[in-house]
């Protein structure tokens, strides 16, 4: 293309300053160029234009492909699962066009559960969504994109995170968020491995990172972690110490919890006393307020000054101790079942009952959660998740009228679909408050809302204008979402 560069060079400078050197033209052009130059009747501009026109045609006609043996691409591995149906593909296209993360998540879940794959044509769109989404669809996208997605990701740096990367590599070289995610995930399957990871990396981590990593172990502490966590109480950083202490408190058998139990044994106990002029004897709960030291701490992780007017300092210490021991401790200590234990805390001692709720939640004691709610029919949103599925629904329905808002807040965390009855109660409520629950609420929760609620949308709503008009608009969009969800269900049933 040397000759063409010569022509372009001349064109840029202008024929007033430069002429095409005919001898630089390739031999195939020489004859034509000779004829052009031989024309004395035309000016040099026309001579140039004619030479360039011939050169242009010569260039266009002489294109040849690049013979490059080393330009190779590996083939994607064949898939082990079939692709989803054309119906499911079309629904996915509609969802991607709607830009609805809730429905997308639901489609991905259905696809993964049915053990089919997204078609190749939609793999790039899904990978793009996965990298732009912060709500954790990456795992599902990686699953449904199959080997084609894995293969494709290697060519696009933006999708690198969706490629299957070794966990160890991700832990060692990933971003802070990726490291936290992989730590949490691997912790569930192999706690010992994550303990090794943490211990090896610990000297290189800064205080913030240490605290953040410890937070990921929340609810997943193992007895084997105790020695290491105890060592961490000597760390310089207050943040790290607090996190280590918080985790130690979650270990029912830890020395710390044992210490709390021993303290409680001496402060709260049952004593048999005579009643009715010695005719009968009854068990009486004795509570001795702890001595609050002026200097130093009462016990590790226990505040000695009350921050609540209802409790004095001694009561406040007791409250903290009760909420820091597993509820099962009381069954051993008092030798009676949960219901009877709770029945002891009456009158002025009833103020300690909320601490039992905290202990139930901390140690995730499902039996105590049920026993507590049978003993006191009060709505505790924290206990909801510890009830069996059916009881959760019944508990929500029973308390819905009075506690609609906190219940809805809790239900937003459910991974399963709400029952039709519960969903109806929720929609009845949310439709009456369209400004508090705009279409975004339904979009986010669409995977939890059963399709059957479509029948109540027309009759729901606040009634008065202009709220009713606003709701009607929401209902219209909401029904479209429900229809899409219905299509997903049908598509994966095929």
């Amino acid at each position: 293309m040397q000759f063409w560069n010569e022509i372009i060079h001349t064109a840029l400078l202008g024929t007033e300053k430069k002429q095409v050197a005919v001898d630089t033209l390739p031999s195939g052009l020489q004859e034509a160029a000779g004829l052009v130059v031989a024309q004395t009747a035309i000016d040099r501009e026309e001579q140039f234009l004619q030479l360039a026109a011939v050169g242009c045609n010569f260039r266009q006609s002489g294109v040849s492909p690049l013979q490059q043996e080393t330009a190779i691409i590996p083939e994607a591995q064949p898939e082990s699962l079939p692709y989803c149906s054309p119906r499911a593909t079309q629904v996915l296209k509609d969802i991607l066009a709607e830009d609805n993360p809730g429905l997308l998540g639901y489609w991905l879940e259905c696809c993964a559960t049915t053990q089919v794959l997204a078609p190749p044509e939609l793999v790039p769109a899904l990978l793009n969504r996965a990298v732009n989404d912060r709500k954790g669809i990456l795992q599902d996208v990686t699953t449904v994109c199959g080997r084609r997605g894995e293969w494709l990701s290697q060519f696009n740096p933006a999708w690198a995170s969706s490629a299957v990367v070794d966990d160890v590599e991700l832990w060692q070289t990933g971003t802070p968020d990726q490291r936290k995610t992989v730590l949490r995930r691997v912790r569930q399957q192999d706690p010992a491995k994550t303990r090794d990871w943490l211990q090896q990396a610990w000297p290189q981590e800064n205080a913030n990172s240490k605290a953040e990593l410890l937070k990921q172990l929340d609810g997943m502490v193992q007895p084997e972690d105790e020695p290491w966590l105890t060592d961490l109480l000597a760390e310089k950083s207050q943040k790290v110490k607090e996190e280590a202490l918080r985790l130690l408190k979650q270990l029912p058998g830890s020395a710390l919890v044992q210490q709390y139990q021993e303290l409680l044994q001496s402060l709260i106990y049952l004593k048999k006393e005579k009643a009715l002029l010695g005719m009968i004897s009854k068990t009486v709960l004795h509570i001795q307020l702890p001595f609050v030291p002026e200097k130093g701490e009462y016990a590790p992780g226990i505040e000695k000054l009350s921050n609540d007017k209802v409790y004095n300092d001694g009561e406040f210490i007791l409250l903290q101790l009760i909420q820091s021991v597993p509820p099962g401790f009381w069954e051993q200590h008092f030798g009676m079942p949960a219901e009877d234990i709770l029945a002891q805390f009456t009158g002025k001692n009833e103020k300690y009952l909320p601490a039992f709720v905290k202990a139930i939640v901390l140690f995730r004691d499902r039996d105590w959660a049920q026993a507590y709610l049978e003993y006191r029919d009060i709505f505790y949103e924290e206990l909801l998740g510890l009830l069996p599925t059916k009881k959760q629904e019944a508990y929500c329905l029973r308390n819905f009228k009075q506690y609609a808002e906190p219940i809805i807040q809790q239900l937003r965390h459910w991974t399963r679909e709400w029952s039709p009855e519960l969903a109806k109660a929720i929609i009845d409520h949310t439709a009456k408050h369209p400004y508090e629950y705009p279409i975004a609420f339904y979009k986010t929760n669409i995977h939890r809302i059963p399709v059957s609620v479509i029948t109540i949308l027309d009759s729901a709503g606040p009634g008065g204008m202009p709220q009713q008009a606003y709701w009607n608009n929401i209902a219209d969009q909401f029904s479209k979402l429900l229809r899409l969800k219905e299509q997903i269900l049908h598509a994966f049933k095929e």
Partner: protein
Amino acid sequence: MNLSEDQILALAPDDASRKSGKDLANPAKWVSKGADTSVLWGECQGSGSKPYQTQIDLGNLAFKCSCPSRKFPCKHGLGLLLLKARHSKSFTDTQAPTWVSEWLTRRTEKGEKKTEKKDKPVDEAAQAKRQQARQQKVADGLEELLRWIKDIVRNGMLNLPEKGPAFWENMAKRMIDAQAPGLAAQIKSLGELNFYTEGWQTRCLDGLLKIYLVIKGYKNIDTLSTELQQDIKSLIGFPQNLDELKAQPGVSDQWFVLAKQVSEEEQLMVERNWLYGLDSRRYALILQFYVRSQSPAMSLTPGLLTDATLVFYHSAFPLRALVKEQRSTKKPAHPPEGYSSWTAVLDNATAGNSRYPFADDWPCIVRELKPVGFNNEWWLQDAEKNSMPISRNYGAIWNLLAFSGGKPVQISLIGKEKEYEPLGVWYNNEYKML
């Protein structure tokens, strides 16, 4: 004819219609609906008291709806087609109501009348006078244009990027005055070049040379072949006589619609439909111009086969054509034949260049091309390991790769020289637009 949802949605005039059409693909929205082999109809309950009557001629994909929308097809037409695609079994009524059969009859009559309507008396003397006056104007205009090009060549193109749009627009206007709209459009497109991207120099010089060749060709038109004479005239902006063209027998074939490219030029929608004839093995470009929100004269859907007769415009390199008769549309049973290698594609391009030095992008179908990465660029490699680069601005590379999975696929492309853009790919015997 069973259109896929993608093909139906591709008919939508805009995103809003696409979205609304999807919403109407719901049985609850339709008071009645039915279908037979050639027509689809339904009554959709809108905001008015009477439902809208929607009907679709499946043979030629023609729509009619009683709704007030000026979009074409309207959301009801799209919704009905989508509903048919999704719930075909629910179209149990096969007896077309009167309003449908009347419309079909009117369409047939109209088609017949159209063919009868010709031979209006023409004042040949006046026509010749007008032609002569125009030729003079064009000749004067071309002289002025040649001077303008020579000025650029003399002073050099180096300072062209600094010239504002007025530099190009003024000359384009002069060509409009000279009744050479084809050249005006070429000058305008030169002014729209991005002078701050690599390779503008070649693109600009190519454009100027093309105009120069047209000017010289017009001056020496009597020495050229009849076809090339027509090309020169077309490039200047002399229209070809459509009645004369339609009087020709044309090429009857099953035409595979490779792509539909729609752009807006001077408040006019320009639709470029790229076709390939299965038997004739010819490529064709069907251009349609229409005002936004109005309907193009005919509907061509990428991925479908149209049984039609095309008449090619007179040219040394015939590509542009008009549809003389469109009979039916159906799904293709298998991919069309294509070039076996890049060498075959480029040999054909070279042969074309020798006959017609003005070629813009042209389409081709190539079998067994594999996208490969080389020198930070994506290339398409054929079975002989010959590769050509994919245009740098190509936006659907990941979709192409996803379909390919590292294996060769049959691809339809558009481009020339060293810049090609894939249009569609055959995947599992089905044509997928990229």
